[in-house]
């Protein structure tokens, strides 16, 4: 084992250099002008918002089948973003058919990663995640024609 001795001043200087480099990478993802600091830019980025996408859905689910999910996303930020992943929250999937269907929708969402869904600054757009949802044979008869709400987390980064 090799031990390298450095002075406290050298160690702090090293940390300073590394921190500046890493923070600069963080800024680059957000800034179009290159100005500002990592903290300032990160704090001004607003979360994406999701709206009801039921009107855009296509009826393609039945027991044993897979289907698509519609996501209506708004980017409130003054810069374009790229959505890279969509993951289901712990909250249960529900339907517009009431308790009997909700008790056994049979619907499962497969978390999506490696996506490249681009959204312009300030824009609202509806995306389709093909094959992201499936329905098992456990789906209750009352689920026919149902519109399902899938609580998800969307993750993206600036795409400036």
């Amino acid at each position, binding site marked *: 084992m090799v031990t390298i001795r450095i002075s406290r001043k050298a160690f702090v200087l090293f*940390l*300073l250099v*590394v*921190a500046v480099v*890493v*923070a600069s*990478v*963080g*800024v680059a*993802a957000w800034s179009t002008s290159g100005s500002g600091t*990592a*903290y300032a*830019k*990160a704090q001004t*980025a607003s*979360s*994406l918002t*999701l709206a*009801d*996408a*039921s009107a*855009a*859905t*296509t*009826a*393609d*689910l*039945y*027991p044993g089948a897979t*289907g*698509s*999910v*519609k*996501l209506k996303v708004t980017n409130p*930020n003054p810069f374009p973003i790229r959505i890279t992943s*969509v993951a289901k*929250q712990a*909250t249960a999937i529900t339907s517009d058919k009431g308790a009997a269907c909700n008790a056994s929708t049979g*619907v499962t*969402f497969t978390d999506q990663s490696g996506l490249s869904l681009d959204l312009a600054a300030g824009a609202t757009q509806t995306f389709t995640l093909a094959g*992201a949802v499936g*329905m098992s*044979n*456990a*789906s*209750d008869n009352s689920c*026919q*024609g*149902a*519109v*399902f*709400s*899938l*609580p*998800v*987390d*969307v*993750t993206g*980064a*600036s795409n400036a």
Partner: protein
Amino acid sequence: MRVLAITMLAALLVAPTAGAVWSRGGLGGGGARAKTLGTGAVPTGAASGKKVTVAWTASTFVEGGNAPGYVVRRYNAATGVLQSIGAACSGTLTGLSCTESNVPSGTWQYTVTPAAAVWRGREGGKGAAVTVA
């Protein structure tokens, strides 16, 4: 000096997360829709001894695409009472015909209902009466 070092370490931990925008969508975050099964076809029936072969055409979902299965029922043609159906025609069938064996003597009518697991469509009309001697 120590405070400065701690500050730098904090910056190291926080900076890599600066590129992510996340959102908790809440209910309604994503949407998907299910199909609806349509109505069964009116079947034909042909008796041969104690066997009756029932055949029907494919049913579809209201939104398109064939139903994956069917349920066949047999009724007493005179009383309209639902009967127990033989094994080869019971349960959910994936084909478009079945042959019921050991059918009791009498006059019967068959119906077909589209099915997908426990989903059921609308039962179709009764086919022409079939007499088993």
